[in-house]
């Protein structure tokens, strides 16, 4: 993004809160606080070091106010940016700007959700749109299904290719002790699962989890004195294209076609420089669109690109190495977990699922119905 300096900040602390199905009556702010403390312990900072708060959840309109109260921190800088699941990639870009300009020194980015406990309808009520709601689209699934129908029509993408995305994610999840799903999955199982919004069965759709996470960001200079290996912010790109799916200009081209080039330009890198690719996979069409739009394969080739285990462990490109929103965890807004996984890959902490010599990792967030796209490129100290 214009005005941001490559490598000026780093993510130094990361953590998940409790995940999947949390204790009864936990609040989303409880989960944020738990993840915050774990992320501080990860990097060796104290709660009182935090002077910038960036947060979003569907269950609180002003989470920075909740956090100011709950944590007892008076932020010098606060940002409630809410653009759906990509909010946390956006927070990284905004925190980078704030730290680079001295508006805060230690930024907390955090998320919490109890949507599995409360139900999706109760935790994230749909906004009424008089030009759409009357047709009872099952949102957000129907929005992505409409986009998938166009991709299938224009490029011959098949339900089997969509299913390959879910199958690959499951293979990665089986290598992640934190993942919710523990059993293997086949293409046939995806195709024969309960239909939700054609062409998607329930196995083409992300999990419905509780959970939260936290990231701690500081300047590159300060990052050197932390106890963890810094994940430097090399590039950020952000693009808002629409709110409702009927207003998406081209259903086969997402805003990642803008956010990706912005992030790569800032980083001075190209897709072939990335070793770990973490893409927001709320639905199986997403990684197909994002691989194309971010430049990992030509437009229209995504379906073929994800086939034959090419994005599974041992494949051509390591995509969604934690198991993704499809098989690891998806509490409504998945974006923060793309970043935690990207950082773990750069640190070399991923055990069986570790990408060898991983120095550049990409986290691509998506929000709404393909509405907001935010790309963050992170690098190890070999890249700065």
């Amino acid at each position, binding site marked *: 993004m214009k005005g941001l300096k490559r490598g000026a900040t780093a993510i130094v602390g990361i953590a998940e809160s409790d995940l999947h199905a949390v204790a009864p009556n936990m609040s989303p702010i409880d989960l944020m606080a738990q993840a915050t403390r774990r992320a501080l312990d990860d990097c060796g900072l104290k709660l009182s070091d935090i002077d910038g708060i960036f947060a979003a959840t569907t269950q609180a309109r002003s989470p920075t106010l909740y956090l100011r109260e709950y944590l007892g921190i008076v932020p010098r800088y606060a940002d409630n940016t809410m653009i759906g699941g990509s909010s946390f990639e956006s927070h990284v870009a905004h925190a980078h700007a704030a730290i680079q300009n001295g508006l805060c020194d230690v930024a907390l980015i955090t998320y919490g959700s109890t949507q599995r406990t409360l139900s999706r309808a109760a935790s994230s009520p749909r906004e009424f749109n008089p030009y759409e709601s009357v*047709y009872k*689209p*099952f949102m957000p699934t129907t929005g992505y*299904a*409409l986009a998938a129908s166009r991709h299938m029509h224009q490029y011959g993408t098949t339900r089997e290719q969509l299913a390959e995305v879910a199958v690959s994610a499951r293979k990665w999840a089986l290598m992640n002790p934190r993942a919710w799903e523990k059993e293997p999955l086949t293409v046939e199982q995806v195709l024969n699962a309960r*239909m939700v919004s*054609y062409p998607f069965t329930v196995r083409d759709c992300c999990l419905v989890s509780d959970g939260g996470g936290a990231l701690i960001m500081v300047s590159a200079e300060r990052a050197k004195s932390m106890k963890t290996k810094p994940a430097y912010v090399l590039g950020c790109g952000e693009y808002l294209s629409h709110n409702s799916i*009927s207003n998406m200009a081209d259903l086969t081209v997402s805003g990642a076609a803008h956010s990706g080039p912005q992030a790569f330009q800032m980083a001075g890198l190209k897709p072939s420089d990335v070793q770990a690719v973490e893409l927001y996979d709320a639905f199986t069409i997403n990684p197909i669109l994002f691989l194309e739009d971010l430049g990992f394969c030509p437009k229209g080739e995504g379906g073929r690109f994800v086939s034959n285990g090419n994005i599974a462990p041992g494949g051509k490109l390591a995509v969604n190495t934690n198991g993704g929103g499809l098989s690891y965890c998806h509490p409504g807004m998945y974006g923060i977990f793309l970043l935690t996984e990207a950082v773990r890959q750069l640190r070399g902490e991923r055990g069986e699922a570790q990408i060898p010599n991983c120095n550049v990792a990409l986290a691509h967030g998506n929000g709404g119905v393909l509405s907001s796209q935010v790309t963050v490129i992170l690098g190890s100290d070999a890249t700065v």
Partner: protein
Amino acid sequence: MLDQKLQKSPYGTFIEHCKQGDLAFQVCTDDNTPVYFPRVIAPVSGSPNLEWRVSKGLGTVHATTVVHAKDTPPYNVALIDVDEGFRMMSRVEEIDPMNVKIGMRVKVRMYPGDEKQPPYPVFVPAEGAK
């Protein structure tokens, strides 16, 4: 005109047309751009010069899905490219929802409203309609 209080909302005017059986949209008279959903000012230019028009009601299916919900048979949700140059969400009726295909020609029909829900536009197949 920008200083005057609006007596009707864009959606209010849209509903009035629906009640008369018409699918209405706006055109920005500065450059003849169709505008849908209806707005107070035109997007991009910011022009207040929006004029209401009634569509001939013909369009083409741009994207389609079938929603499987509890307690109701599967139903269609589609995006329709209306001939006057705008896209809208709707559904195609009178046909198995799985047989709604991209590129299919369709014609608008007003779905009757009730006390809670004003009438709203749906589509039916219009084979042969150019």
